[in-house]
């Protein structure tokens, strides 16, 4: 959508009259603010934006956005958002979900919405815990994590939303720390511009039930050394001094230091987010050090609504049925006098 024809909005236009009820200090505020800052940049009319959520802390989000919104039921936002988008493909549709909502109770819908590649966006608030039900382990909680439902430590191994998404043929995947509003805002804008299903995983701190779960990678002190912020077409370099980089050794990614052992910037891998083959994207998602953030994958593909639209146009053009009467009175009818 082009910005020229659209009203000029500011951050405030997207703030609803509802009082925000998240816990003080929650990363959810960062996500909300980033979204409200990103929307004026997207060039989309306010009435054409729909937020759909499931259940959980994150899912209160639509109430705080001054756009159209549905706060639905647990795990089912992808189904509702799919219906909204298919009914009116001109809308900018956003699914707001959490790790429990998307990957536990809504796991089935989550993989299928990614598979179909409908042009909508998913923001997954991953805090590795159930917040609204007051602290049970989720499918992304680590083994050994002590929670209300695992007082002796979690025994269920987690999966990674990114890996799961790529397994479901996701075309767009980004990951960002919950304390990085600047990059987050930019990623939201990019996700909106991307044609297809975009998944943005936010590493979101829960101050009450899982405080500090990402501290070792997102804290200001360590984030440049522990994260690599990927940008398409740029070398995979990270570190406070921008002297670390990624190279491929055998079938694994390896961290090297530029200037040591004859390594120069030329040896460092260049990020190709648009590559169809997800192998490298999968390896980046799996990486424990550094943690890959930014847009990992953005493969341009045909969307479901494009396929549907093309088919409908073709069938409409070739059909003898213009009105239902044409159908009802066609074929084997007979007269009773």
């Amino acid at each position: 959508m082009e910005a020229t024809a659209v009203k000029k909005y500011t951050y405030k236009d997207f703030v609803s009259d509802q009082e925000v009820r998240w816990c003080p200090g929650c990363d959810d505020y960062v996500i909300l603010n980033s979204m409200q800052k990103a929307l004026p940049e997207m060039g989309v009319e306010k009435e054409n934006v729909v937020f759909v959520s499931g259940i959980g802390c994150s899912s209160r989000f639509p109430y705080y956005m001054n756009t159209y919104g549905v706060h639905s039921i647990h795990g089912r936002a992808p189904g509702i958002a799919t219906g909204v988008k298919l009914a009116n493909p001109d809308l900018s549709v956003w699914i707001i979900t959490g790790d429990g909502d998307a990957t536990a109770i809504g796991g089935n819908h989550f993989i299928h919405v990614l598979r179909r590649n409908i042009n909508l966006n998913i923001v997954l608030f991953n805090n590795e815990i159930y917040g609204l039900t007051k602290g049970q382990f989720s499918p992304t909680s680590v083994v050994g994590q002590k929670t209300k439902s695992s007082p002796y430590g979690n025994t269920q191994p987690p999966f990674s939303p990114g890996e799961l998404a790529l397994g479901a043929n996701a075309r767009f995947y980004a990951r960002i720390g919950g304390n990085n509003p600047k990059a987050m805002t930019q990623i939201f804008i990019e996700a909106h511009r991307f044609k297809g299903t975009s998944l943005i995983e936010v590493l979101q701190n829960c101050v009450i039930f899982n405080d500090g779960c990402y501290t070792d990678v997102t804290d200001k002190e360590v984030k440049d050394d522990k994260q690599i912020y990927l940008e398409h077409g740029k070398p995979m370099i990270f570190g406070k001094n921008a002297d670390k980089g990624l190279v491929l050794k055998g079938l694994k990614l390896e961290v090297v230091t530029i200037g040591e052992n004859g390594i120069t910037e030329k040896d460092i891998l260049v990020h190709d987010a648009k590559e169809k083959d997800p192998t490298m994207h999968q390896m980046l998602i799996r990486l424990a050090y550094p943690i890959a953030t930014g847009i990992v994958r953005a493969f341009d593909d045909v969307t479901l609504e494009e396929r549907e639209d093309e088919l409908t146009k073709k069938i409409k053009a070739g059909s003898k049925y213009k009105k239902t009467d044409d159908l009802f009175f066609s074929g084997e009818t007979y007269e009773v006098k």
Partner: protein
Amino acid sequence: MSIESIKPAPKELEGVVIRFVGDSGDGMQLTGTQFTDTSAMFGNDVSTFPNYPAEIRAPQGSLYGVSGFQVHIGSVEVSTPGDSVDLLVAMNPAGLKTNLYALKKGHTVIVDKDAFTKKNLEKAFYETNPLEDGSLDGYHVIEVDMSTLTKEALKDVDGLDNKTITRSKNMFSLGMVYWMYHRSTEHTIDFFNKKFKSKPELIEANTKVLNAGYYYAETLELISNSYTISPAKMVPGTYRIIMGNTATAWGLLAASEKSGLELFLGSYPITPATDILHELVKHKHFGVKAFQAEDEIAGICSAIGASFAGDLAITTTSGPGLALKGEALGLAMMIELPLVVINVQRGGPSTGLPTKTEQSDLLQAMYGRNGESPVVVIAASTPADCFNYAYEAARLALEHMTPVILLTDGYIANGSAPWKIQSVADMPEIKNRKVTKFTENWHPYKRDAKTLAREWAVPGTSGFEHRVGGLEKDSVTGNVSYVPENHETMTHTRAEKIRLVQNNIPNLKVEFAQQGDLLVVGWGGTYGTLHSAVKQITEEEGFNNIGFVHFNYINPMPKNTEEIFAKFKKIIVCELNSGQFAFILKANFGKFDFQQINKVQGLPFSNDELIQKFKQLL
């Protein structure tokens, strides 16, 4: 055993019930459909009931692999496929064994003698050959070497393999039945010409076999007479034969055109509802958006999303699927969006009897959600009126901003009957509540004073940006509210909104006696069987004190319900479950005594069992 000749009994019949049975692969559905269409075009009223196994290709010759098609044709109004059968056509021993019970004593059974081999008899668990051991005494048995005669008829046709030859023997039996009932083969030959356009050898083969059967029946002295059934007296107009599920789909198409809204279907395959999905996916030319979701829940959720965005939204399912949709249906009720939920009922509970019929989802439709969550519940009563009630479901959903559950069942969904084609121009108006121009103080839960329906502000409409959700909301602003009194107000408002639908539905009409000793009460798909039983007892047995009332609107019920109940001394509620509608009636009309006739066998009522029970009450 030799074939006896029929004693001359030339007479004109008012109606006849024919059942074609054979192996799943024997083409019985096609044979039955052809006979039905030909008879309808001749001017008969018709009613059909296919009965096929849940298994797609059950082992050949097995008892559970038997596929059947029953058709009732009449020179008078026919409202059921009939219970007992006048003519049975059995293509193999398994078909004979599983269907002989339905054949009236003294009536005719045609069998393919060639299929009564040792192997097939064993598969059907016959210890001795029923054609030889006297077990068919008392029936008129016509043994025909159908496979042999079919082969003989095709000996000069080139390019046919053995399988094709064997598979065309159903046309031999159809030809025989055409002759017996004075039907022309013309319609079926036209059908071959269209269906096998690019395979002339198949046109030739099928035509030859059909004619061979026809002439065989004519030539043989064995069948010495035949029956005629004159055209029925039907309302003039253009007709077609329609299956209930097709009629349902078409009713939705009509509602979409009339309302000017695009049609969205979110669905997941489930027997016996899937044919509605199959039908609607064909109609992309009308802009139908049919979305096959990953499960039942996503099916209804996508429909809720489409409704939020302004489409006429539908989800289709059967019993177990409705259970899965329960939570989402509660959401649709809570956010007060128009939504049509179609439940083609089958035998339950759990997986139950997927291919059999039952009316046992009524209480699920009424109450199967958490909290107090009333929705409109209506039910279709015949294959043809599935069209009207699908249309009606859409009309009520849009005008009252509510989910509407339409109950049909396997019996009417798969059955077919003549449908007097209805043009959309003649259908009632459908208004929707979409907003256009923003005015100050607009709130999403602002209600119409007469109906309590809220307005429909769809995304893309400037000024109306708002949020809805499953949390309780303030009765005015629609914002989340936990205020105790507000919750009670909203609970009552949601109930009252559904009750007010009463002002937008027709009154009940009593058929036969308008007052008297016994009122027969039914709902949904049992209309045909109940109507014909009351008709018979009234017209043939001279009772003039029985009335019949049939409910299509269940929640809310028509306004004159109580008034009608008061006109009869006894009330008998007949339904294919253990008494679910009776339970609702007892709760709502406590001053009447409701007696019950119930059947839970996966089968429709039979005429005889109803008449016998009615008589006991008189």
